[in-house]
């Protein structure tokens, strides 16, 4: 099934949603927002994308591996940036003295926080989309048999 209204709306709304999500994500340490909220918005854009295109085109479908990599990558970024502190002889998740802090008020101004926020954002976006995928398929196995 090909739904033109959905597709046209999607073409406008999906990039706009993702841009907004990225804005919220990158400004987590400067204004209200951050990994959870930004990640959810980006995840919502994925859901919208697959709602729009899953009727028209099989190759546009987002794969399970994509959301899995988002989830795992996000978690790895978080734990990895935590371990950097230990490598530098400080505590787990230490920010000050390990990461360059930068100038207050600018985008690059809080060292590790931006990195961690990105990790959380990826994880949350992946998870939100994964939940949607799993519930949509209603417990069907990815490899086809029940």
């Amino acid at each position, binding site marked *: 099934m090909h739904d033109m209204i959905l597709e046209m709306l999607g073409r406008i709304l999906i990039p706009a949603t993702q841009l907004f999500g990225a804005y919220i994500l990158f400004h987590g340490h400067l204004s*209200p927002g951050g990994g959870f909220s930004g990640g959810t918005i980006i995840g919502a854009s994925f859901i919208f994308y697959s709602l729009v295109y899953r009727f028209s085109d099989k190759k546009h479908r987002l794969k399970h591996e994509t959301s899995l990599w988002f989830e795992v990558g996000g978690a790895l970024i978080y734990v990895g940036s935590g371990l950097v502190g230990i490598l530098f002889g400080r505590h787990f998740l230490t920010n000050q003295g390990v990461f360059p802090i930068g100038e207050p008020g600018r985008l690059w101004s809080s060292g590790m926080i931006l990195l961690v926020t990105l990790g959380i954002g990826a994880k949350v976006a992946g*998870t939100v989309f994964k*939940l949607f995928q799993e*519930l949509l398929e209603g417990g069907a196995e990815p490899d086809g048999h029940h």
Partner: protein
Amino acid sequence: MVIIERLYTNIYYLISVVLFIIGFHTMLTHNNLLKKIMGMNIMDTSLFLFFVSIGYIRGGQAPILREGVIQYVNPVPSALILTGIVISVSFTAFALALVVLLHKQYGTIDADKIIALRSRRHA
């Protein structure tokens, strides 16, 4: 007058306790599994309201350093509740997935009917 004033100052706590009881009751007494999940969400939301209202100050602003703002809301409860919301979302999603499975296996989402089906199989 005193009672009304106390009600007014504690209105968030009051409402959250009422919501908590509604959620608790829904969760325990309803047979429909979806309603149980809704009850769980009402209960969780009441707790979020309770937690956030602990740190809320009337007229307070978001705790970001800016000129001209004197009163800040305590950010700790809000930060905690963010985590709480995430937990609640995962619980809900997981519970819904289980309901989908149960519906597939038993053909119903009524707790009583599921128990009846199960005991019939055992008998």
